[in-house]
């Protein structure tokens, strides 16, 4: 445990050392949701999620999805850079006897903290415009999806360099949430079930728009997160030991 604690403290210190980064983790989702909340009109549209459909104001129907997307993008890029920036150092730490699994747990815990910060910021600003029907479930589902994309960013960081990684981590969540699982979309392609947004993302939008939690989607989202965590642990562990 002390090894994990030490590695976690080092990671958190690294984040805290750059206050502009910590500020951006909060400010960017807040600005994104806040500005979109101001400019989106109250025009009535049909919003749909699997098994449910209703008429709603555009801002009420779409803004929760954009709040989730903001938190997800921050976490994804943070996960990417956390991996790319620490791979070398972690390689030396592993050589000196710290297990790579311990290092991964510490990095994942720090990443979860960053994802939580972004999720809370997005949810709080969202609530200024549109209060989700089930705020706690919405926040929980958003956090699950944000951590999922954070760990996906870690995997991408092993495979690509920074430039390609940022490109991938911009488009992946945007296509997933804004296009494939947008409440304005009615007929996503079959392959959309493979994306994480289909589970925790739909659970978040469901929690924002309806009074009944979609536990099955959220449960599948958590299972998806665990699967991604295993893949990330293997990929990052391999890269650290290599």
């Amino acid at each position, binding site marked *: 445990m002390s090894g994990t604690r030490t590695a976690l403290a080092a990671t958190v210190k690294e984040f805290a050392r750059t206050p502009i980064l910590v500020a951006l983790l909060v400010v960017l989702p807040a600005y994104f949701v806040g500005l979109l909340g101001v400019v989106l009109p109250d025009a009535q549209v049909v919003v749909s999620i699997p098994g449910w459909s209703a008429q709603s104001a555009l801002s009420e129907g779409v803004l929760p999805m954009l709040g989730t997307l903001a938190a997800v993008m921050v976490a994804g890029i943070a996960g990417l850079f956390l991996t790319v920036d620490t791979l070398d150092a972690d390689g030396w730490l592993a050589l000196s006897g710290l297990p790579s699994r311990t290092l991964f747990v510490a990095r994942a815990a720090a990443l979860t903290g960053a994802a939580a910060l972004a999720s809370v910021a997005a949810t709080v600003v969202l609530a200024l415009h549109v209060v989700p029907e089930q705020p706690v479930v919405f926040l929980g589902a958003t956090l699950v999806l944000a951590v999922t994309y954070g760990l996906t960013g870690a995997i991408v960081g092993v495979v690509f360099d920074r430039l390609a990684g940022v490109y991938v981590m911009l488009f992946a969540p945007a296509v997933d949430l804004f*296009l494939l699982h947008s409440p304005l979309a009615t007929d996503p392609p079959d392959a959309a079930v493979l994306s994480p947004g289909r589970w925790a993302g739909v659970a978040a939008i469901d929690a924002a728009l309806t009074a009944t939690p979609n536990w099955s989607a959220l449960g599948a989202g958590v299972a998806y997160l665990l699967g991604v965590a295993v893949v990330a642990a293997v990929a990052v562990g391999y890269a650290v030991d290599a």
Partner: protein
Amino acid sequence: MPDVRIGAAAHAKGVVRQPTTLAMFAVLPPFVVFLYGAAMASFPDVAFLDGSASAYGRIGGALFATAFLSGLVGLFGTVSAARADRYLSFAGFSPVVLFATRVLVGVGVAAITAAVSLGAVAAAGTGVASLPRAYAVLVLAGVLYGLLGLVVGALVPRELEGSLVLVFLADMDSFLSGDVLQVNSDLVNLLPLHYPHALFTAAVREGTLAGEPVGPAVAYLGVAGVAAGVAYAAATGRGWSL
């Protein structure tokens, strides 16, 4: 003239040194164009779409893929070479030449990415009414984002923080300038891709730019160029940062 040649060669080498960057130019824009086309097919009943939803998605995807890739190259190039450019400036290289050569390389990146993206649009089966005009608009969008990447890189000279800023700017731009979300605010006119989107859509569909906002788009490019020049001169001359 030798200074220009040396500066352009150095900046170009910085771009092509990474094999994954080269692969990105070839692979990612077509992938994004395909994905946007497929995903937009989920919006079959959206009234504001004039024509095929897939074609609309490909148009937005090509524009966004070109612009964001150029923006990232501008950002990462500025961040990674800021110190070197500062030393070159101290050593007697004209900052104007350094800036001009960086812009020149940015135009080259935009030209390559635009060609690949436009090829992907045509290959996907979307008829392009005027290839030269559509290509010119895509290059304009790429250069515009390349300059914005340069501004962000000069103001926020760290890759993670700069990436976060650019990603949120690009996403907001992509969502609002593409009219997927109907917004009545004049703020939309300030988004970098607002005018290029209208121009590119007209070039692909009608093959003419008559009656389209060519002047504002070029003016926007001019303003971005001046902003990039000022930010770059300040960053290389005095080494200031946030």
